[in-house]
């Protein structure tokens, strides 16, 4: 595996997702997220339409040319060499612009501002922490576990029982999908 052109990504195989909500619960638990903050969500599309209904698990998609990064008035986003989109909560002013720009509704706002208004933005970190010192307490408190630094995959992916949710560099992810399609007829 070369280190250039590595782009980390999530992929949710809708043929496999059984709407068990294991991923979003695992995420909440691992990062001790406050009530109302959901870094990962399981959503149902075309609910109730027989043959069309499917569920998917979504979080921040760590976009290339991330719109959130483009609109932030305090420039608190930074994009790692492996494509993971992270931000600095100490710099964030909780303006909400990133949420308006995001196509996935990923940025979340805990009610920690004045009069219970929105505080610093929180979103999926790909379990890669934040700008604080790697694996420090400060990092853990602000951003949750840094599992990537420990050599592990994001917690949602690790616990997905059907292995619908995948994460990794795009080459490895598409490798898994290709094999699934070839060997098992995309099942």
């Amino acid at each position: 595996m070369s280190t250039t052109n590595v782009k980390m990504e999530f992929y949710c195989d809708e043929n496999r997702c059984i709407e068990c909500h294991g991923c979003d619960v695992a995420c909440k638990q691992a990062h001790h997220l406050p009530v109302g903050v959901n870094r990962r969500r399981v959503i149902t599309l075309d609910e109730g339409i027989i043959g069309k209904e499917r569920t998917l698990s979504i979080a921040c998609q760590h976009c290339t040319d991330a719109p959130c990064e483009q609109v932030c008035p305090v420039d608190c986003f930074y994009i790692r060499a492996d494509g993971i989109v992270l931000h600095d909560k100490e710099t964030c002013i909780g303006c909400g612009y990133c949420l308006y720009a995001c196509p996935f509704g990923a940025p979340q706002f805990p009610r920690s501002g004045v009069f219970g208004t929105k505080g610093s933005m929180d979103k999926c970190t790909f379990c890669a922490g934040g700008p604080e010192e790697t694996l420090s307490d400060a990092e853990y408190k602000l951003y949750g576990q840094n599992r990537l630094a420990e050599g592990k995959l994001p917690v949602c992916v690790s616990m997905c029982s059907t292995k619908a949710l995948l994460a990794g560099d795009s080459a490895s992810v598409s490798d898994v999908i290709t094999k699934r399609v070839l060997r098992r007829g995309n099942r």
Partner: protein
Amino acid sequence: MKNSLRTLLLLPLMVSAVFAAENPIWGEGRITNIFGYGKEGSTGLGPLFTLLQNQYFVPIFLAIIVGVPAVFLLHYLVIGPKVFPHGGKKIKVFSLFNRVIHQIAAISFIVIIPTGIVMVFGSFFGGGWFVTLCKDLHGLFTIPFALVVIPMFFMWVKEAIPNTDDIKWMMILGGYLSKEKKPIPAGKFNAGQKMWFWIATLGSLVMVITGVMMYLLDFDMSMLVSLTGLSQIDLLRLAAILHNVVGFAVLALFITHVYMSMFAIKGAVHSIIDGHMEEEEVRILHSSYYKKLQKEGKI
């Protein structure tokens, strides 16, 4: 010039067309029907907001806070202020009620405008606690302003309705290009003040509503949702776009208002402090108003 203007006007259309096509972020690759993102097609104003905020809003604000004062500085240096002798006969022009309402609005604006500018240039100020404090003050001082904006509207709206004087005033640019003291066609408010009145009341009302929407973010907007057919997230995007665009006008005219009352007409600011204006000043700068007062036998 004409071409680039046309491109600028067409840009949003072109951009949304481009984004609507195969784009991994805004196009096919996107998952629709996200919780809280409501209906189909709710990317809606997302790409437009992203483009505007990323490329246009900050430079336009910069142009306003540099350009408008620069023009006035030039005016001050080249033409200079109009000075009326103070200490002559005075006419009462603003009641106590007028002044109290105006002062509350003025104090609110003195906080709201600079804190808004700090947020626009948030990265310059490094974000963090200082910009967050400005954000909170921006919201906090909206409360007194919101309380007085409606009374302010009603107490001055009659004087702010456009009439033929305004066209004549515009033709001579309010007489600001010369120091000559010729009577200038204007009622109690001249065309410039009227413009400011409409932006400061109706424009600011838009600012208050859109600002509150963004500040509270997830409050129940279902009434607006059913009224407009937009999803909540699109309403928020619209609020952000409007807040910036109307903000250009409010900022530019606020600077103008301050320059006019503090510098261009020396001492004009006193009229809103003690309610009185020099008779000479009224006769020249608000000649139609002066005639009206004469007819009514008030002078």
